């Protein structure tokens, strides 16, 4: 009969289904693995196990024999495996290196209170600190130098600043364009406008950054008369150009998928095309439009190259006409010079984890809002 043959009846379909299932599963696995990797590298920071103080407690090499092996290993910051592979002379040498490092510290910094501070502690990362030579507490990201200043607040502000400017610029334009193209434009105009706007997304962001750096920055400075030529405003607008095609494309799809019968119903009641689009179609497409904005946010906050090229001084300022350094920019610019396993390196991974968390939360909140809007529209709440 073949009625009880199960999946053997259609082996190809069964196989195709399995393959697709495996692929989607591996996508989820990949995200998880990336998160685990980033999290693992950043873990010592989260657990407070790193010490970035300039002046470390030093044990003279002569006293090596007084330490038991475990104490020695912890002191030299070696893994058990590394420790086992080293002979006595190597260990002795490492101890001398520690001693020399202490001796190389310029004498004027020996009395600096900051030289003893472990700047990877949370209070240095999140709160302003009055460093010696400064007249008041400041948020400072300055990873290179004798005192490593790792305050992440300027970077978070920088990311938010450029992203929000980008969204404020891009969302009205792209949603407006989407309304026009999907509801008002004649078919001829639609056929040209839609692919052209979507073509924008094909421009490499380094090219957008280059254009912003050379052209937009000068034009804006001439128009707005601000002091810093390369600033968050220019970067934000340039980011906007990268975001527009993303938001436009998804918003346009959402608006187009609103049933034509809604528009016809509104027109039959005596609304103009514009009123029908604005009063009826846009509210009906709101979940999709909102999803477009969330995706645009993700694109903007994850964009690296444009901000890196246009401005990258990590100043702590909410002014849009000051420079800004975003989280992504910091990672891209500094990773190459950070010592693997060192506190700078781990700090950059910590920033990566923060970025991951921010995008995750934004997407989650976005999803919840979209879900609510949908339920409200469909009359289920």
């Amino acid at each position, binding site marked *: 009969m073949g009625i009880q043959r199960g999946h053997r009846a259609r082996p190809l379909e069964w196989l195709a289904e399995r393959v697709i299932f495996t692929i989607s599963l591996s996508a989820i696995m990949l995200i998880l693995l990336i998160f685990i990797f980033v999290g693992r590298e950043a873990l010592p920071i989260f657990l407070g196990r790193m010490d970035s103080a300039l002046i470390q407690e030093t044990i003279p090499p002569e006293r090596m024999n007084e330490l038991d092996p475990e104490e020695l290993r912890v002191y030299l910051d070696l893994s058990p495996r590394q420790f086992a592979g080293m002979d006595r002379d190597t260990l002795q040498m490492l101890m001398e290196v520690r001693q020399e490092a202490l001796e190389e510290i310029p004498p004027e910094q020996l009395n600096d209170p900051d030289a003893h501070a472990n700047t990877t502690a949370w209070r240095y990362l999140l709160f302003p600190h009055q460093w010696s030579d400064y007249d008041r507490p400041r948020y400072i990201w300055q990873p290179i130098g004798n005192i490593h200043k790792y305050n992440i607040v300027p970077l978070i502000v920088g990311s938010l600043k450029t992203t929000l400017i980008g969204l404020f610029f891009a969302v009205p334009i792209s949603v407006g364009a989407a309304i026009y193209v999907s509801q008002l434009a004649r078919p001829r105009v639609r056929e040209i406008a839609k692919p052209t706007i979507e073509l924008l997304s094909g421009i490499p962001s380094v090219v957008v950054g280059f254009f912003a750096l050379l052209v937009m920055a000068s034009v804006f400075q001439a128009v707005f008369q601000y002091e810093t030529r390369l600033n968050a405003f220019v970067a934000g607008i340039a980011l906007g150009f990268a975001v527009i095609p993303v938001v436009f494309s998804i918003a346009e799809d959402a608006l187009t998928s609103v049933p034509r019968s809604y528009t*016809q119903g509104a027109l*039959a*009641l005596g*609304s103009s095309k514009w009123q029908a689009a604005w009063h009826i179609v846009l509210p*009906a497409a709101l979940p999709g439009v909102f999803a477009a904005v969330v995706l645009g946010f993700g694109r903007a906050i994850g964009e690296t190259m444009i901000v890196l090229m246009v401005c990258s001084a990590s100043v702590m300022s909410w002014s849009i006409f000051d420079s800004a350094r975003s989280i992504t920019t910091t990672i891209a610019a500094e990773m190459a010079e950070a010592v693997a396993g060192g506190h700078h390196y781990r700090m950059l991974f910590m920033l990566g984890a923060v970025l991951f968390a921010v995008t995750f939360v934004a997407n989650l909140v976005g999803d919840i809002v979209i879900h609510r809007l949908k339920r409200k529209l469909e009359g289920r709440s």
Partner: protein
Amino acid sequence: MPAAPLKNVTVSAPDGPDDSAKETLIEVRDLSLYYGATRALTQITLPICPRLVTAFIGPSGCGKSTLLRCFNRMNDLIDNVRIEGAVRISGYDIYSRDVDVIELRKRVGMVFQKSNPFPKSVYENIAYGLRLQGHRNRADLDQIVEQSLRSAALWDEVKDRLHSSALGLSGGQQQRLCIARAIAIKPEIILMDEPASALDPIATARIEDLILDLKKQFTIVIVTHNMQQAARISDYTAFFYLGQLVEHDRTRKIFTNPTQKQTEDYVTGRFG
């Protein structure tokens, strides 16, 4: 040729007053309509009388819906539509260049085949047309919304859920909501494009009762595939075939003693 007695059609429509006593509200004269190169309507000439129900019948693709959509210029939304001839409403040529289509549609309402309430609350669905006309006073709106819902025989069913989404209503309720929405702005003419074709018999009966009730105030033009429905509710019936008006007369006459052989064949169910 005398018509064969009809077996499956009951005609209950009242005899209208004599034709001579009727003025014309919508006057269609030599109207032809083309979709690109295809001619969908050929030289239609047809008067439609006020405060009566006129039914358009005919097989699918005969142009009856197209003609209906000429009366509120919904065909404007389709590209490549070309119209010859004239449609006059109360003596005004609605295709003349100085006509404001939006004003026209406020006077000529429409109910569609598939109910299309907006994804808003029941209240907002009806208030929308009023807001478009600039009604802002909350008390006025409340009053017109209630009155429209009562006219559409829907008030008792929705009065406790005015502010929940209209998409939660049943199909028949949604269609009556669309009728309420259309009458709220007090048009002179209501066009109905197969308003009951997607509904069950009970909901259909309610819509038909509603139409008979509404014709006291409005002029109704209805497209229908359902011959019994045309016979039950209309005063005049126009039969279309292949884009041409075959016959237009009192409903009783069309269904009992049509002049044209084609009409007779169609209403007795021999073709179409």
